[in-house]
């Protein structure tokens, strides 16, 4: 067995098969549970993630709410295509200088990441980014 086998081995080593995990429906349900009856609108919150990810092990992510009409109590981040749907929850206290955080997250596959901001006035705001991951994180 010569070339075809080598090509297959090389291909198989590089293909990432996403594991069974979170689904958009699951994330939607979590968001619904979080938001409840409160109005959920797009905008105000900004989720910053690169559209093209060269390695899913550490992807720079930042969330920020510029000029919120009422203090931001928490920001929740979800990943629709990861093994688990939740990424992080950030709650801002009285000594917070601004409702913004930067961190690094793992991405198992190309997917949509969603951030929800809950404000003290009860309103909820949403932003999302669709990303392409060329080298996945959660598969070894």
């Amino acid at each position: 067995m010569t070339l075809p086998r080598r090509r297959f081995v090389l291909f198989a080593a590089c293909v990432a098969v996403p594991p069974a995990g979170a689904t958009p429906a699951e994330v939607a349900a979590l968001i619904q549970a979080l938001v409840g009856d409160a109005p959920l609108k797009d905008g105000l919150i900004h989720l910053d993630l690169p559209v093209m990810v060269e390695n899913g092990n550490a992807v720079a992510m930042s969330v920020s709410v510029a000029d919120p009409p009422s203090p931001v109590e928490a920001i929740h981040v979800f990943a629709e295509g990861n093994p688990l749907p939740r990424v992080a929850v950030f709650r801002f206290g009285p000594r917070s200088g601004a409702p913004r955080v930067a961190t690094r997250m793992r991405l198992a596959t190309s997917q949509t990441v969603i951030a929800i901001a809950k404000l003290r006035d009860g309103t909820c705001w949403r932003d999302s980014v669709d990303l392409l991951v060329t080298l996945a994180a959660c598969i070894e």
Partner: protein
Amino acid sequence: MVRVLINVPKQIHANEPFEVKVLISHPMESGQRRDQMGQAIPRDIINHFIATLDGETVLDADFFPAIAANPFLSFSVVAEKSGTLALTFVDDHGVTQTELTAITVT
């Protein structure tokens, strides 16, 4: 005890938000990986992080396995006067570690 690197700006002015950057040395084992024998490597992460300034909350965060290894965090703090910034994190074993940094307001 895990290694922690905290970066605080040299010039901090009263009531002006400033950025604090933290790096924590931790593998954040997601629980998704398998070892050489095919056995799942159990989850082992820092699951909670809290930053306080003289006891008042700055940021209170829940981390899940999707937070990358050697977690990095950058967040905004506002101080009225000099004080102590305390960073506390808890892992899946319930082990708590606190790092203190002086905040000097000029």
